[in-house]
């Protein structure tokens, strides 16, 4: 049975899966917050459990909203990033501009990172304040069709509002991490005599939750990130209508072993493929900790769009 998993199908399926993940993530956050709030106990003089949950949310919220709001300024902080204007490189500018016309997005600011590594990323709080960055390496090493595919992938991140989604996810992860941390620290100051036997079971439960929840939250965050990569791949192909271009580009970029010096763990999820090469883990379990899906899985999804591979995946 040859069923073609078209770019349209994959796009809808990835959007649906993101919503499913986000639903369970929100549920998970509420449960963890509830358990830890009970762990802190009622408000007697202090903030109480609910108050502490509120404080964690506010701190994580403010931190991430600030970084979200100024997300397009990240590129400015990268050493050697230069803005590309229409008259400095018409070819690249027109490539971006024309893809923007095709997707109905305003043309973002374009930056060139002077680095021979092959990579690209997009960021910005909304399409009007977005920026896309290309390394000089990727411009030199990729053909036009491949470069077009990469730019279409990046513009899709902008069009799909991935910076916003990842900021929301970061608020949830941050609140859970803060809460867990507050809770484990508070145990040092607890009166151990006052705990009855019934509370002991709850105490263990709360400690387990506090230890495991940040890890689980991080894993969910990475799952969202990988899902959005698949989504950007399929939306990008809807722009270029040429899956082979992105396939070739991914193969070329992943074959290039040079790491990007200016990337770090904080910004890794932004790039088209993980810029911290050599640190990318393989295998099912290790795969849970990756910001990007493995290249073979992305290639396979792209081949399905061409009708070349008929097994269902992703």
């Amino acid at each position: 049975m040859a069923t073609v998993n078209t770019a349209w199908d994959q796009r809808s399926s990835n959007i649906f899966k993101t919503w499913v993940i986000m639903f369970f993530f929100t549920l998970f956050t509420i449960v963890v917050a509830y358990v830890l709030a009970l762990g802190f106990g009622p408000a007697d003089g202090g903030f109480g459990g609910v108050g502490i949950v509120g404080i964690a949310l506010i701190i994580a919220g403010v931190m991430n909203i600030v970084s979200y709001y100024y997300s397009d300024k990240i590129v400015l902080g990268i050493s050697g990033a230069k803005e590309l204007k229409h008259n400095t490189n018409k070819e690249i500018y027109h490539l971006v501009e024309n893809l923007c016309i095709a997707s109905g997005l305003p043309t973002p600011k374009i930056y060139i990172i002077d680095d021979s590594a092959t990579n690209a990323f997009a960021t910005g709080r909304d399409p009007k304040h977005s920026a896309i960055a290309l390394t000089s390496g990727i411009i030199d090493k990729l053909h036009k069709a491949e470069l077009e595919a990469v730019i279409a992938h990046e513009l899709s991140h902008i069009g799909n509002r991935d910076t916003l989604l990842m900021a929301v996810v970061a608020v949830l992860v941050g609140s859970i991490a803060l809460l867990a941390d507050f809770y484990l620290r508070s145990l040092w100051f607890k009166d151990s005599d006052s705990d009855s036997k019934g509370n002991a079971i709850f105490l263990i439960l709360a400690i387990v939750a506090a230890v495991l929840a940040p890890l689980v939250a991080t894993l969910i965050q990475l799952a969202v990130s990988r899902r959005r990569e698949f989504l950007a791949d399929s939306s990008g192909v809807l722009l270029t209508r040429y899956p082979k271009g992105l396939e070739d580009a991914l193969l070329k970029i992943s074959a290039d072993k040079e790491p990007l010096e200016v990337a770090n763990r904080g910004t890794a999820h932004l790039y088209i493929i993980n810029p911290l090469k050599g640190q990318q883990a393989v295998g099912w379990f290790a795969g849970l900790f990756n910001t990007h899906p493995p290249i073979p899985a992305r290639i396979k999804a792209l081949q399905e769009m061409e009708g070349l591979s008929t097994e269902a995946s992703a």
Partner: protein
Amino acid sequence: MIAFYIFAAAVFFILIWFLVTYNYLVTLRNRVREAWSQIDVQLKRRSSLIPNLVEVVKGYAKHEKSVFEEVTKARTALMDAKKPGEKAVANDMLTGALKSLFAVAEAYPNLKASENFKELQAEVSDTENKVAASRQFYNTNVLDLNNSLQTIPSMWVGSMFGFKNEEFFKASESEKADIKVKF
């Protein structure tokens, strides 16, 4: 009494759904119109480059009259075309005419070396890409609207308020034939 409340609630929700669907269809239709005006912008930009280009080529290759005529005719046809299908055909014709113009230019080394010509050539080819891009955006929006107008339940709201399927920006065979007859 309970039955009445259930009935009232059902009517209320249907009403809300109606409003939301109607607004959604209007949004889709406006998007199509906006996308259409973007194609127009690019097509105008394209047409406006033609006289300059013809002038420059004429300066070096006076005797290629038939090519100039073909390009000028195609340009006029494009400017006169109204409906998406007609415009798409005229646009394809202009592309063909420009192709023969650039092919002719190959035979004139001085023309090929002229900065002015090179710049115009680059501009024309970029505008061609921009037309293609805006056409893609337009067609995606038309697809969105037409999908909503052809699927249940939104098609009921659509037909009630006279929403119409929009035409893709695409050169169909019959229209191609129509335009050719005029030459």
